[in-house]
């Protein structure tokens, strides 16, 4: 959220922005929340909190900018600040570990995988979803934002408060981890890998 309040919207303008720019994103917001929490009630609470905050701070939303990215940023911050604090899971430690350890922009692009295109194309929806869900939350998040929601690197950098270089390297790592998961599915499905050709 921008700290600068650019202007004050009238009540009528607020309702219009809320109805026409915020509410149409509820489907994407709920799916993002569900993929972060894996729980219907938590996802509902997270989306509701996000919309209440969005309405409260609506004056810091600049019309003509990407409302979906603005809402996603609030949702992601709510998840980190509120939801993770509530759940006394080691998730927070994981997160810090990811932040410090994985945030380096140096990525080894030479690591390749013997996963085959045909095997990927034949995967079932549940297998893809399970592979994605098994990734640590920070890796899962970049893939959701990029591949499922179609945000640009620049939008992702703003949503996540990280530099674009970090977006790129985190995405690359996330996809490599995903490929490892998909490869193990592929081998259980009996698909050959390139090594066996």
């Amino acid at each position: 959220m921008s700290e600068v309040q650019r202007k004050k919207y009238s009540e009528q303008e607020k309702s219009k922005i809320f109805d026409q720019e915020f509410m149409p994103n509820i489907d994407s917001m709920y799916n993002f929340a569900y993929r972060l929490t894996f729980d219907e009630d938590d996802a509902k609470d997270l989306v509701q909190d996000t919309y209440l905050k969005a309405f409260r701070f609506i004056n810091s939303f600049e019309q003509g900018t990407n409302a979906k990215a603005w809402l996603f940023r609030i949702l992601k911050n709510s998840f980190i600040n509120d939801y993770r604090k509530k759940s006394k899971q080691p998730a927070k430690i994981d997160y810090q570990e990811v932040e410090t350890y994985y945030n380096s922009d140096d990525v080894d692009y030479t690591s390749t995988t013997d996963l085959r295109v045909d095997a990927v194309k034949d995967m079932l929806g549940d297998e893809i979803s399970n592979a994605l869900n098994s990734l640590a939350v920070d890796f899962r998040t970049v893939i959701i934002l990029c591949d499922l929601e179609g945000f640009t690197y620049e939008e992702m950098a703003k949503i996540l408060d990280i530099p674009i270089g970090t977006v790129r390297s985190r995405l690359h790592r996330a996809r490599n981890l995903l490929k490892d998961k998909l490869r193990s599915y592929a081998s259980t499905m009996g698909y050959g890998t390139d090594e066996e050709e």
Partner: protein
Amino acid sequence: MDDNSTTSGERKLSCSDVSKCFQLLESILDGENMPNSKEMLNEKLAKCEPCFKHFHLEQAIRDVLKTKCTKQTVPSELEASIREIIQDKK
């Protein structure tokens, strides 16, 4: 991609700059527009086997993520309950 041939043909079998090439390919697949990216992409796919393979695998993964991931239906009462709370707070 229109070049979907699976034969390696005249492509070189090793890439001299995998890091740079793969990063470029991934950025293009993610919709980042760079100058001359289309020309560079076509050349890499035509001439370099590792780039060709990497591109098509990365593309397939993006496609299945986009099309096959399970989607949750938004609970029907959620929108109404959000509106109700906002109305109460006004």
